[in-house]
C-alpha cells in the first residue's frame, strides 16, 4: 500500500465538483482511497481520520487544493498524481438529448405532424390513437389486441374529423411513395390499393412493381375493418380518398372475407365509383350478379395483379391459374422421389394472408387442409403445434407471437417447426413464404437455410425426398436483395415462385 499527496496553492474548486473528481480517480485500477479537498481545517481532519499525514498538509491553506491518493503501489500513486490535470479538467462530453416519452412531447417537437405511427402495447393503443386524432393527426395503428369497441369508437371519431385510422393490427401502408411499417420498395404509379390484409398488400404492390407499374397509395385498414361490427369505416374512407386522388387511376381492394352486410354495401359503393375497381375478397362468396362495368373480381392476389395490368394496358405478367408444362414435369419428378409413406403437405407461413390464400387454392382443388387459422371452421387444429394430415400454419398468429418477435422479423420459431415437421416421415412437401422489405428480417432465407437443408437430409436418410416449395414476396428495391434471396433458395434445391398463389398451386398439382 502506498500513499501520495499533492497540494496546489490558491486553486479554488467547487466542493461538489471535487467530489466528482474524486469519483473519477477512484475508478483508476489499484486506487484504494482518495480525497480531493480544499485545505480547510475541517477537511484536514477528514484526511487525518483516513490516516493521511504529510507535511504539505500542515502548511496548506483553505484556498489550496489537496489531493491525496492511497493505492496498491507507489507506481499507481505516481501515475494518478501525474495525470491530475486530466482529472481536474472536467468538461464531460455533452449528453444527447433524450427522446421524448409521450405523444404530447412528440407533438411539441413536431407541431405540424400529420401522421402518428402507433406501436405501443395494445391496452394503451386506443388512448394514444384518440389523442392523435384529437390533435388532428391521421393514425397508422400497428398495435393489435385493441378491443373491437375501441376500434369502432376511434374510427367513428376519425370519420367525424375526416381523418384516417389505418389499423388496429395494420402492418403495412404505402403513402405517397413512403413505406410505413412492413412495406416493400415499390415505384410510384397510378394504382391505388385498399387492403385489410397486410401481406396481401405487400404481395400485390410488389408484383405491380415487378411488372413495371407503380403504386399511388396503398392503404392498410386493419384486419377487422371489413367486419360487420366496424362496417368497413376505414375501407370506405380510403376508397373515397383514392377516388379523389388525382394520382390514382385504378383501385384494387384486397381483403379476407368482409361481413355479409359490409360486402353488400361495398359492392354498391363500387358501383358508384368513378374509377375502375378490382376486388380480391379471399375466401368470400361474391354474388355473380355483382358484375358491372367498372368492377372486376379476382379470386387470388395474382388474378388481381393481372387484372390491374390488363386495365392499365399491360400484358398479364403472372401465370393466373394452374402450372405450366415445365411445372408439370417437375411435379412428376418430385412425386416419384417420395418414399411410399410420404403424402402430406405442411405449410409454415410468416404472412397470415398467404396462409389463408393457400388454403383457398388447395380447397378449390379439393384438397382439405387443417390450420390454426382455418378457412373452414371444421378444420381447426386442436393443437397448433401438432400438424395433422395436410396442415397450413399461420406462424404470425397470437399463439406464436405473444412476447416473441414476429416470424417476419426473426425466424427462430419457424426454424424449430421446420425441423419438427421434417421428423415426420409422412411429410412430403414443405411450403414456405419469405417476405422482404422494410422492418423484415435482414436475411429471411439465410435464417432458415440450415434447417431446410437438414430437413431434406433427414428425408433422404429415410429413403425419400422432401419437396420444399417457397415464394418470395419482394422487389429488386428491397434492402434484403431480392435476387440473392431467390438464388439462395434455388441453390438449396427449393422450388421458388414469385408469388404465394403460384407456390400454392404448385403444391395442389403435387397433391392431385
Amino acid at each position, binding site marked *: 500500500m502506498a500513499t501520495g499527496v499533492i497540494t496546489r496553492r490558491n486553486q479554488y474548486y467547487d466542493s461538489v465538483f471535487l467530489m466528482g473528481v474524486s469519483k473519477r480517480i477512484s475508478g483508476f485500477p489499484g486506487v484504494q482511497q482518495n480525497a480531493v479537498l480544499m485545505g480547510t481545517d475541517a477537511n484536514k481532519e477528514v484526511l487525518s481520520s483516513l490516516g493521511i499525514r504529510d507535511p504539505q498538509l500542515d502548511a496548506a491553506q483553505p484556498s489550496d487544493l489537496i489531493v491525496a491518493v492511497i493505492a496498491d503501489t507507489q507506481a499507481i500513486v505516481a501515475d494518478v498524481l501525474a495525470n491530475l490535470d486530466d482529472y481536474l479538467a472536467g468538461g464531460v462530453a455533452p449528453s444527447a438529448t*433524450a*427522446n*421524448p*416519452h*409521450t*405523444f404530447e*412531447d*412528440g*407533438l411539441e*417537437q*413536431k407541431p*405540424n*405532424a*400529420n*401522421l*402518428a*405511427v*402507433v*406501436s*405501443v*402495447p395494445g*391496452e*394503451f393503443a386506443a*388512448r*394514444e390513437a384518440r389523442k*392523435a386524432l384529437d*390533435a*388532428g*393527426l*391521421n393514425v397508422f395503428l*400497428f*398495435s393489435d389486441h385493441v378491443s373491437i369497441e375501441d376500434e369502432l369508437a376511434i374510427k367513428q371519431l376519425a370519420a367525424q*374529423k*375526416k*381523418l*384516417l385510422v389505418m389499423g388496429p393490427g395494420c402492418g403495412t401502408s404505402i*403513402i*405517397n411513395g*413512403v*413505406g*410505413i*411499417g412492413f412495406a416493400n420498395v415499390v415505384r410510384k404509379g397510378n394504382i391505388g390499393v385498399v387492403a385489410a390484409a397486410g401481406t396481401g398488400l405487400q404481395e400485390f404492390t410488389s408484383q405491380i412493381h415487378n411488372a413495371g407499374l407503380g403504386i*399511388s*397509395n396503398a*392503404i392498410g385498414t386493419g384486419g377487422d375493418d371489413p367486419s360487420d361490427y366496424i362496417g368497413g369505416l376505414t375501407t370506405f*374512407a*380510403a376508397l*373515397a*380518398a*383514392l377516388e*379523389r*386522388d388525382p394520382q390514382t387511376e385504378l383501385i384494387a381492394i384486397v381483403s379476407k372475407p368482409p361481413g355479409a352486410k359490409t360486402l353488400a354495401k361495398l359492392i354498391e359503393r363500387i358501383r358508384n365509383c368513378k374509377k375502375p375497381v378490382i376486388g380480391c375478397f379471399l375466401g368470400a362468396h361474391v354474388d355473380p350478379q355483382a358484375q358491372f362495368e367498372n368492377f372486376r373480381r379476382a379470386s387470388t392476389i395474382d388474378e388481381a395483379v393481372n387484372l390491374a395490368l390488363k386495365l392499365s394496358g399491360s400484358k398479364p405478367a403472372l401465370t393466373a391459374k394452374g402450372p405450366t408444362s415445365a411445372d408439370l414435369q417437375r411435379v412428376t419428378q418430385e412425386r416419384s422421389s417420395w418414399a411410399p409413406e410420404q403424402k402430406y403437405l405442411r405449410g409454415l407461413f410468416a404472412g397470415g394472408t398467404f396462409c389463408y390464400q393457400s388454403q383457398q387454392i388447395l380447397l378449390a382443388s379439393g384438397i382439405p387442409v387443417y390450420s390454426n387459422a382455418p378457412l373452414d371452421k371444421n378444420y381447426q387444429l386442436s393443437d397448433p403445434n401438432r400438424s395433422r394430415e395436410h396442415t397450413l400454419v399461420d406462424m404470425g398468429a397470437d399463439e406464436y407471437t405473444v412476447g416473441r418477435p414476429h416470424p417476419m422479423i426473426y425466424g427462430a420459431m419457424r426454424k424449430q417447426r421446420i425441423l419438427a415437421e421434417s421428423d415426420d416421415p409422412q411429410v412430403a412437401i414443405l411450403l414456405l413464404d419469405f417476405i422482404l422489405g*422494410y*422492418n423484415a428480417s435482414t436475411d429471411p432465407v439465410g435464417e432458415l437455410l440450415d434447417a431446410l437443408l437438414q430437413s431434406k437430409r433427414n428425408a433422404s436418410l429415410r429413403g425419400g425426398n422432401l419437396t420444399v416449395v417457397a415464394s418470395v414476396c419482394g422487389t429488386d428495391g428491397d434492402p434484403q436483395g431480392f435476387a440473392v434471396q431467390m438464388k439462395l433458395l434455388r441453390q438449396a434445391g427449393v422450388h421458388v415462385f414469385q408469388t404465394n398463389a403460384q407456390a400454392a398451386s404448385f403444391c395442389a398439382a403435387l397433391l392431385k
Partner: protein
Amino acid sequence: MPSTTDALIQEPLIVINLGLKAFADSLEQQQVEVVQVDWIPPAGGDQAVIDLLDQLL
C-alpha cells in the same frame, strides 16, 4: 393545423412515431421527417389509474 385523409396522401408525411424505433428508422431511411417517441405508459402502466386520469385531467 389539423390534417385530413386527403392531405395525408397528397402532402409530405410528418410523423410522430410512438413505440418501436425500427419504424422511425425505416421512415428516416426514406427521408421522412419523424420524431421518435420512446413511449412509456402513464401512471407506470396502471390501467385503473389511467382510467381515473381520463376523468380528472
